């Protein structure tokens, strides 16, 4: 048995092949402690395919989790496996992985093209291949016209895009992005979100972390919620919301005559509360969203109500997070 400080692999991808029978990302009972501080406690996670959002407030352990995944930290207990290989011991899996770190310090004297092609070469490509790939990937993120300017002159959003480009240069199957939308202007934000969605659609496994909740919502519905180093919830956003039966759901209906509609809907057993926040708005409090939504269309059509919008205002991450973390998040 090799001691942990010895790395087994040389990072040469020819001799390493991914284990296709296990999930791409596998954490088993992983904990990381710094003395008395538990950065992560007993995280068990398996991810394969699609975009997954890792959510948590600052200090929840997102960056620690990513550092563990990328072999920068060693777990105090438990195992981390990427494509079936422990990244702390063997850097070979990184041939199939692209990592976009959170900080934005890059070498200001390099050009974007030089930066991306350097890391392409570190993946094992030749100079010419690296150049081609760099062009391709910079085109993908929309930086072709400024590719030969120095990174020091780039705006924050452009730097984010360069980081994403360099992570994509080896056509990875797993892409890990640590707070990719942080500090980006709206244009860059849209571009990056589109990119992430594209990657998810192409069948890659994408991990995105953020503490900005509505952005994650717009990218994906698969989420992992971390809080104080612990796993709070995992899975489809709406399914999680479903499971939280104790707090009421609200359905907000914009209609011409809310009082009439209220009369019709109040008879439903699932509805326990009605309110009229304004002259043309009806709010329904219910414990069973599905039930009400099943009945609602028929009610509206049959009684001829004129409805302009139907909304579930708290079927979102914010309320989930608030509920799960006892409102201490934010």
């Amino acid at each position: 048995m090799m001691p942990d400080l010895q790395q087994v692999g040389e990072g040469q991808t020819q001799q390493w092949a991914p284990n296709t029978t296990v999930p791409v990302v596998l954490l088993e009972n992983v904990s990381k402690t710094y003395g008395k501080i538990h950065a992560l406690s007993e995280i068990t996670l398996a991810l394969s395919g699609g975009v997954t959002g890792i959510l948590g407030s600052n200090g929840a352990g997102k960056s620690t989790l990513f550092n563990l995944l990328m072999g920068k930290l060693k777990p105090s207990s438990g195992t981390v496996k990427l494509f079936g290989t422990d990244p702390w011991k063997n850097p070979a899996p990184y041939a199939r992985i692209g990592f976009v770190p959170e900080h934005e310090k890059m070498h200001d004297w390099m050009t974007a093209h030089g930066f991306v092609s350097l890391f392409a070469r570190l993946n094992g490509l030749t100079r010419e291949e690296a150049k081609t790939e760099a062009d391709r990937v910079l085109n993908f993120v929309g930086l072709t016209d400024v590719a030969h300017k120095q990174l020091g002159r780039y705006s924050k959003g452009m730097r984010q895009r360069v980081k994403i480009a360099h992570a994509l240069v080896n056509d990875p199957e797993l892409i890990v992005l640590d707070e990719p939308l942080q500090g980006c202007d709206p244009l860059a934000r849209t571009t990056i979100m589109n990119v992430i969605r594209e990657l998810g659609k192409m069948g890659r496994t994408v991990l995105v972390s953020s503490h900005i909740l509505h952005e994650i919502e717009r990218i994906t519905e698969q989420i992992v919620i971390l809080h104080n180093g612990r796993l709070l919830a995992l899975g489809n956003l709406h399914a999680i919301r479903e499971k939280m039966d104790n707090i009421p759901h609200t359905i907000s209906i914009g209609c011409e005559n809310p009082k009439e509609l209220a009369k019709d809907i109040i008879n439903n057993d699932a509805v326990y509360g009605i309110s009229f926040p304004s002259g043309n708005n009806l709010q329904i409090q219910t414990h069973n969203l599905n039930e009400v939504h099943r009945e609602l269309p028929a009610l509206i059509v049959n009684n001829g109500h004129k409805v302009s919008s139907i909304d579930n205002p708290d079927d979102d991450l914010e309320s989930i997070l608030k509920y799960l973390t006892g409102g201490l998040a934010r």
Partner: protein
Amino acid sequence: MSDDEEILPQSLPQPMTIEPQPQPLAQPQPQPMASVPQAPILPIPQQVQKVESVETRMATAETPVTGQARMDTAWGSSEGDEDISQMASISQTDTGEIFKQNYEPWRGELNPRWMRNWAILRHHILGIFKKGHRPWGVPTRIFLVLVFFASLSDAALTLLSSLIGDSEFHSYWGVNRDNLYGHVLGFFPRNVMYYPIVAALLVGGVISEDRLHGTSALYFSRPINRFDYVGMKYASVAFIQAIIIIFTLFLYYLTEIMVFGRGWAWIVDTFPIFLGALMGGVLLIITYTSIGLALSSVSKGKFFPGIGLLAIILGTKTLAIIVKNLFDREILYLLSPYDCLAHVGQTLVNTQPTYDQYSWTWSLASLIVMNAIALYVLSSRVSSMEVTRE
């Protein structure tokens, strides 16, 4: 496990409004819950309060929200509530407004300049031994303490000589011309191992860390002169060195006086020598600090200035020694700060000069030139430091 949830199809109706919400403000649609039975689990009561305070006191388009109002709101006037609603009211209007921002200068009394400077000085000096001030590194502090005690070695040996009662021992270690000179400017071990390294450790991050982390912005966005900024840093580094070099010299002198019961006659005799050594020490401190701070203002690293200072002091000395041994020419000593200081110090204390090929005035001139260059570099770098991180 929660694997099931991952593959669950999207059976729930999607919320219809996926587009960005039209309100540009922090508050989403106000949710007056007053008429609804309170949800059983809203853990923070403040939320309820907050909701209640957003009463429908909507201003109309005729009372536009001004920058003044925002400022007052932000910086706390007692009428906070209504102004929040004023901000919230923007969402109801269809028109846009452009607001004049009126910034009022602070009309308070500024404390005198010396107080501000004293604050900077204090921050740097107290940081050696107190938390909450400039954090000098632990190795630095340990080394300073060690050197302080090492510099007291001659005072300790004087004390020892009186305890032993050995006059030969005392004549070797007691206060005399050569020993006073040696305390400040002796080459081994003080000026090889102690004082240059002390200077190197102190000047290491003094200005370069401000450049690296951008904390110079904290200074320059306040009513602090650049001259004061660098002056106080200079003074703090010099002061710490002075404690180690000059204060210990003073203690040495004092030990001799007290332990051997020296009278006024002796003091009158030896005081000029003591003053000479003191001035030599002051020159040493000034030179090392100037060169060190100039290096610190040029670099962004924490160690490069210190190592650079050591390289200059010891490297020029080594070069000069090599040339002297090879070619018997002492002229290169003029490039070595230590040798110039030693030469001038020897003249001040009036000991036997060890540099016999040229007069001490050359060394003094060289010292002045070195200091001038260092101070010029320092002042030009500091005056061009940006308020933001460079």
